[in-house]
């Protein structure tokens, strides 16, 4: 049979493992470049906000962290759906590798939000729709990690965790649209496809920081998934060969 290029080949851990390893340094490098450019624009060049003074600069990490916390969850739910539908091995490993980073992003979103809320609203925390639904997202991440860690059999853990992810996905549009659906203290979205309420340097600084967070998340998740692959596939020939060859 002719050996033609097949995308599905990368769904196999044995082929994905070296590919992931080769890609990590590039994602790290690109993340650092975007991060430096974003910090330079956001922290050194961007003007003062006319309402919030210099305090608004928290936006350069608050918005990227919040976006990533929602996006990573959607990616995990996507992997869960693929895993439940096609019973692929890789999908559960990917979801598992993304979870801690997603949880940290949700935490950072809440942490920076609290530090932003205090000077602007006078409160670290309010039980407002946006904040509460983001807190639930953090709990969903923690719940997923606790549930999968509590089940010894990896494939069963993937199935149970996957179901939790799919049920919880309803929370993501709730977070996103909460500022429209309810009267909340949280300000509306700063970025819009048609118009933006921000100065150009502010907008670009934020988008660069978002790219930095994005590339960072991919790099860390790829690093993590490689270890999960070795652990889970330790009885297969390809892992044994790698380990015998002194894999670092």
């Amino acid at each position, binding site marked *: 049979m002719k050996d033609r290029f097949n995308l599905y080949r990368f769904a196999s851990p044995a082929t994905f493992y070296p590919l992931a390893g080769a890609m990590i340094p590039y994602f790290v490098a690109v993340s650092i470049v975007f991060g430096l450019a974003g910090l330079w624009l956001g*922290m*050194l*060049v*961007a*003007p*003062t906000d006319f309402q919030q*003074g*210099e*305090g608004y*600069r*928290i936006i350069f*990490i*608050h918005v990227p*962290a919040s976006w990533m916390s929602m996006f990573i969850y959607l990616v995990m739910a996507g992997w869960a759906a693929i895993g439940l539908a096609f019973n692929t091995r890789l999908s559960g490993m990917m979801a598992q590798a993304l979870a*801690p*980073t997603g949880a*940290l992003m949700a*935490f*950072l979103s809440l*942490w*920076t939000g609290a*530090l*932003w809320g*205090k*000077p602007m609203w006078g409160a670290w925390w309010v039980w407002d729709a946006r904040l509460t639904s983001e807190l639930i997202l953090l709990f969903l991440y923690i719940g997923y990690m606790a549930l999968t860690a509590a089940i010894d059999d990896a494939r069963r853990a993937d199935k149970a965790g996957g179901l939790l992810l799919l049920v919880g996905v309803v929370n993501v549009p709730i977070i996103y649209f909460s500022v429209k659906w309810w009267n909340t203290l949280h300000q509306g979205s700063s970025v819009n496809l048609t118009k933006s309420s921000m100065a150009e340097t502010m907008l670009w600084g934020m988008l660069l920081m978002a790219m930095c967070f994005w590339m*960072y998340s991919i*790099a*860390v998740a790829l*690093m*993590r998934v*490689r*270890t999960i692959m*070795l*652990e889970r596939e*330790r009885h297969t020939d390809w*892992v*044994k060969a790698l*380990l*015998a060859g*002194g*894999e*670092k």
Partner: protein
Amino acid sequence: MIHWNSLADFLAMGGYGFYVWGSFGVTALIMVVEPILVIRHRKTTLARLQRQIRAETRNTAE
């Protein structure tokens, strides 16, 4: 081009220094510590799996 007049100006963040640097500091800490933990976990996992492989091959050789 640069928005700030002095380093002290930059650090003060117009009176919001505590909030701005509290946000950036914790974020930077997490983005440094998370990869370190991931790499450390990988090293211990690799060492354990390699020990197991060596023990297995020793057993089958006997």
